[in-house]
């Protein structure tokens, strides 16, 4: 298992390099640059040229990337071109809200989705409800869902705050209050997919010959479902949960905007709209690292449920 983790970590280095290079090239082809954002609508061509000179934006692209990469390898992700704040400290400030949002949403989606999926595998009719529900869950735009939840729970019922994020250090109660509606918004589509995947995987496992043997041996149905079938169905379920975790990263862009949460998603949008290259590169690095860590956890979980993976 330790070698598995080490291998995954080793792969993350070229992955980070490729991701940062691809994002750098894409941003270079976006219209405009940070100089336009800094200069404002009334900036003259001379002012824009002076800003580009000061920021080094007139250097060749390969030179700009090499400069960034050299600093990044020393742990320095540079400073935001617009706010001049250190990219690392800016993003570290925004890490907690995003991770709280994503982890809570996936936990919620996983718990509810797996529970629903198992029940659906055992009761045929509920399976149809899960199928229909998964289509609705995927079709509902999270933007709309978030606004409806705010309208009901914050505006009409006044039991939860409409927007904002309360850090954990300010108290777990306020922290949780500020995240309940965003968690639900982000979790709904993921719950739909996890429930459907769980139902299919558990139903498939229950059809296998070893289950007939277990029943013949007198093992209780509860034990067959939760100890044997669910364990055998765990690999595809884990795969989907891992994918949902990664999918939730991109979902944070919309959810953080609706609920005014200062996370990585909203930072990525702000950085991209103002061509703030160091901040864009920094968010790419952070997102890539999060995906790598998620994949490591999923692989370790694979190893727990399937010994063959441990030995591979």
């Amino acid at each position, binding site marked *: 298992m330790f070698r598995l983790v080490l291998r995954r970590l080793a792969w993350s280095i070229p992955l980070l390099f490729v991701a940062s290079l691809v994002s750098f090239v894409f941003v270079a082809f*976006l219209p405009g640059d940070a100089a336009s*954002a800094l200069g404002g609508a009334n900036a003259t061509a001379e002012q824009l040229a002076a800003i580009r000179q000061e920021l080094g934006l007139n250097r060749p692209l390969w030179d700009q990337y090499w400069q960034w990469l050299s600093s990044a390898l020393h742990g320095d992700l540079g400073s935001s071109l617009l706010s001049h704040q250190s990219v690392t400290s800016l993003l570290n400030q925004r890490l907690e809200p995003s991770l709280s949002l994503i982890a809570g949403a996936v936990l919620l989606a996983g718990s509810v989705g797996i529970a629903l999926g198992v029940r659906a595998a055992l009761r045929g009719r509920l399976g149809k409800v899960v199928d229909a529900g998964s289509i609705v869950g995927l079709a509902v735009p999270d933007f709309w869902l978030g606004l409806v939840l*705010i309208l009901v729970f914050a505006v009409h019922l*006044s039991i*939860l705050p409409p927007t904002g994020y309360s850090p954990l250090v300010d108290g777990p109660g306020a922290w949780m209050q500020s995240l309940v509606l965003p968690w639900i918004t982000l979790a709904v589509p993921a719950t739909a997919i996890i429930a459907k995947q769980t139902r299919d995987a558990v139903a498939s496992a229950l059809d296998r010959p070893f289950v007939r043997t277990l029943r013949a041996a007198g093992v209780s149905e509860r034990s067959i479902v939760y100890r044997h079938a669910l364990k055998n169905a765990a690999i595809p379920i884990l795969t989907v949960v891992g994918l949902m975790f990664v999918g939730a990263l991109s979902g944070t862009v919309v959810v953080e905007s609706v609920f005014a949460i200062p996370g990585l998603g909203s930072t990525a949008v702000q950085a991209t709209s103002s061509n703030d290259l160091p901040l864009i590169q920094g968010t790419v690095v952070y997102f890539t690292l999060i995906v790598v860590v998620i994949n490591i956890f999923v692989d370790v979980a694979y190893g727990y449920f399937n010994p063959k993976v441990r030995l591979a």
Partner: protein
Amino acid sequence: MTGPTGAARSSHGRRRTATVLIGVLAAAVAAAGCSSSNKTDASTAGSSDKVGDSVTFGTAAPPPSLNPATGDPAYGAVLQWAYDPLVVMNADGKFEPGLASKWGYVGEGNQTYEFTLRDGLKFSDGSPLDAAAAKASLEYGKAQKSGTAPTLLASIASIETPGPLTVRLKLSRPDPTMTFNFAQAFGGGYLVSPKAIANPKSLDFGTAGVGPYMLDAAKSVASDHYVFVQNPNYWNKDRQHFKTVTVKVISNPSSMVQAMQAGQVQAALGDPTTLAAARNAGLTVIAPPQAMSGINLMDRGGKVSKPLGDQRVRQALNFAVDRKTIAKALYGDEKLALSQFALDGQGGYDASLNDKYPHDVNKAKALLKEAGYPNGFTLPVVSTPLYGLDKLVTAIGGQLAEVGVKVQVQSKPDVNGYFTTMVSGKVPAAALAYGLANMGSLYAGYVNTAGPFNPFKVSDPQLDELYKQYFLASEADGPAIEKQINARLVDLGWALQVVGAPLSYYQDKSVTGLETATSANAGVPLLTDLRLAS
């Protein structure tokens, strides 16, 4: 591998885990419901404060930096709390003392400007605001390479301090707009303390002005919320209406209205797309027309689009559009229809110009035929979904189609892309949203051949002559010349302006003070006038 007993215990344990997780979440919701009050506020800025002690003001766009010298008037919603302007423009467009007690041009020709500061002013860091400090601040703003300050202060050639509180500006060219530039709409007079100028990084996430409040950086999170506390060195305690002001960034306009309905935010910058929703929610909506919006017919010389080079064609487009219908449909108020280059309440406004281009499809077709385009032509327009411009351009395009003019929209999702394409000189027309303040600010960006809104660098001798007179005119004579400039621009048909899009503010019933936003002061009130309603 465990035996049957261990297996049963293990499966029971997993079910219990799932049940516990769901139970924790339900408990969180229940606990939240029991513990929260009607005015829930999860922001870090004092959720238990009453409105009397604190107020939350909502804004959509955070400034990249809090340095007013590199900032933009668009970020006034954050900067105004800490920086009083030199002069205040009130609701009828007249100027009142701000940090300056006296101001005005010296002699003839608008080339020497002088102002006198109030006595005894101090920056929030305790250092005195005198003539020397004001001079240093203005020179600092002028020297910046980014932001609006260098443009606003561009005409200043040198700064003298003939008295301890008197500052004299020698201008390199006649510039009648200095007083307006120093008022709250543009914020050219946001003065920064010398200590902060010596350490400019301190201004990226800190304030050092003469305003009723100052930033509490420890309680603030950049781009999310800014907490302002009372400035202990402020000269007028009667203007410190709250102990704490929190400026909360909520980029989604619908979420902003909902936050106000829930009591989390008491006043906010509005948005054209939520005006109706805000009114329906029982909020006070203050929405003076502010921006000339429509299509900027940039290629007036016909370089890329030959038809646009003909004045008759541009006039035909103006006749083809039913402004009142578009204003009513998109903004809910047909009074926002606009067909000139000034707004009601401003010096250059002329009511008679509203009848210059009545909606007349036949007249439009006749002019197009006379110009040699009986079947119309295709007009590429670069636009952006921001500020509702895509919708506006599409609505205009629908009406131009009736006279055979096919509008081809190139929509850019971000302002950078839109702006870059607009100034490229490759597209003959662009969606237009230009804040109207006075003819001077119109010249800077729109009429000037170096301005970004005139990328084809077209000029008109009659207009140039009028502007020459305008720059030399006294404040009393200015409005008459402004009317003539307005009339000439309308006659030239350089724009297909359709509405005066409002700059809007929302207030809930607990506060008042933003009603002073009018077209006469470019739709920008003094935000620090915000106070309890009773």
